[in-house]
């Protein structure tokens, strides 16, 4: 069981230049096995939300629970994937994929076996001796995914994982994310800047308000995951709906402006 529950969570960064309220009384419930997307303008607290869910920060008010248990620190089968930094450049692809298992003191033989299996699953089987510096951006995100798979993660937290990729690679990786979810049915929280990505990969899409973050609106997207969904009129309708919602929240001035670069 890996449903995520955020109950009135607030978080304030205490900085040198003063305090920043990143989240303010956020409520969010993600059912076990449900894939959701979170979208909102830069600085609205999306990354903070994931750090809270991953147990790397604790809320200053409210509560975050995974699988019914309050989060008190990193959890064994939660995986956090983000755009930079996730991989260690000094470790080979295989060692990176096995890192989570190594930190969890899984024996060498089992660790490497599981890491190899997950590398094969994301199409990196032939690159296990390479270093991340030798991989393309898309391959690096595949590697980050392989690490999560090796952990047998039941909760995937992804912070704009594809926003640095070119359009074609990004669609490839979106298809891989969808395929993995269809096979594994893990709970998934995808933070994204892209309206199309949110609608393609989120059965629900949550819109956060600008600073401090609160869930302002959400759209239901029940046909997410159906074959060929990206080419249906319904897909475009959902995208348009989401775009209008964001415009109403003052997040964008309409049009594809949200689909900008990383924050």
């Amino acid at each position, binding site marked *: 069981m890996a449903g995520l529950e955020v109950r009135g969570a607030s978080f304030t960064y205490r900085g040198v230049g003063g305090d920043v309220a990143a989240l303010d009384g956020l409520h969010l419930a993600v059912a076990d096995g449900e894939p959701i997307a979170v979208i909102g303008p830069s600085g609205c607290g999306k990354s903070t939300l994931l*750090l809270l869910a991953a147990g790397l920060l604790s809320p200053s008010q409210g509560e975050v629970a995974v699988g019914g248990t309050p989060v008190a620190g990193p959890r064994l089968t939660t995986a956090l994937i983000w755009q930079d*930094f996730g*991989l260690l450049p000094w470790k080979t692809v295989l060692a990176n994929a096995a*890192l989570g298992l190594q*930190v969890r003191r899984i024996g060498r033989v089992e660790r490497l076996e599981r890491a190899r299996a997950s590398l094969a699953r994301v199409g990196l089987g032939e690159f296990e001796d390479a*270093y*991340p*510096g030798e991989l393309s951006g898309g391959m690096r995100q595949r590697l980050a995914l392989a690490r999560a798979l090796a952990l047998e993660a039941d909760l995937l937290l992804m912070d704009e994982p594809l926003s640095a990729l070119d359009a074609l690679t990004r669609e490839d990786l979106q298809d891989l994310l969808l395929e993995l979810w269809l096979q594994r049915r893990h709970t998934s929280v995808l933070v994204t800047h892209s309206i199309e990505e949110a609608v393609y990969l989120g059965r629900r899409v949550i819109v956060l308000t600008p600073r401090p973050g609160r869930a302002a609106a959400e759209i239901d997207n029940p046909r997410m995951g159906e074959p060929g969904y990206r080419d249906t009129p319904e897909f475009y309708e959902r995208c348009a709906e989401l775009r209008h919602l964001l415009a109403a929240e003052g997040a964008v001035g309409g049009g594809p402006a949200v689909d900008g670069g990383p924050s």
Partner: protein
Amino acid sequence: MTGSLTRKLVGYLGAALVLLVGWQLLSWAVGSPALPGPLPALAAFVTSFATDLWPHLLSSARRVLAAIALGTVLAVPLGLVLGRSPRLDAVAAPMIFLTYPVPKVVFLPVLLILLGLGDTSKIVLITLIVFFQLLVTARDASRAIPPGSVLSVRSLGAGRADVFRHVVFPATLPDIFTALRIGTGTAVAVLFLAESIAGRTGLGYYIVDAWGRLSYDAMFAGIIGMALLGVALYEALEFAEARMCRWTRVGR
């Protein structure tokens, strides 16, 4: 592997040739017995090596190796911990800022008086020098690690020891090797000074002794020995870095 080794060898031979030719020209231009040409100097090195030079080379090598090893083992863990722990660093940083700029070599007389003319005083002096260079480098390098790298490993459930093993140590290793290579140069220089002032062993003593006897060929044999010692240390570090930091050489 063999290809790069051959290329390296050719490079070395070329550089050596240029140096030898330059040396010969300089020796002709100066025209003094104090600067013999490379041929008599190398001949003197070969003949004296087998007889009286090698024990001196050995004691110099032993001293400098012991000091570098000791300085590294003491400085690197301490520097890495200070760089990662703002509280400890707040205590230690003023000490480091006050002591780092003081040239340690001025303590040579004190060390000679307190620790005698033998190995200990020389090893302690060089250890001090290597220690401070590595301490400052390790501290700065571990402070500069991107917080995201640490967070990513912590999100996997890593504790402090795991963070050091998987992030802090490997991330700072290239900087530590750079500091070691620079420190090795200083170490050999200080070794020469210490050996030339005190004791009757080591290449520093050998060189200054030959100088006093106006035996310039022997003096140059000693100089060549000292140069070889420096080159060997540098190459050993280069080799170790190539093995331990393979990732810095890929994807560029």
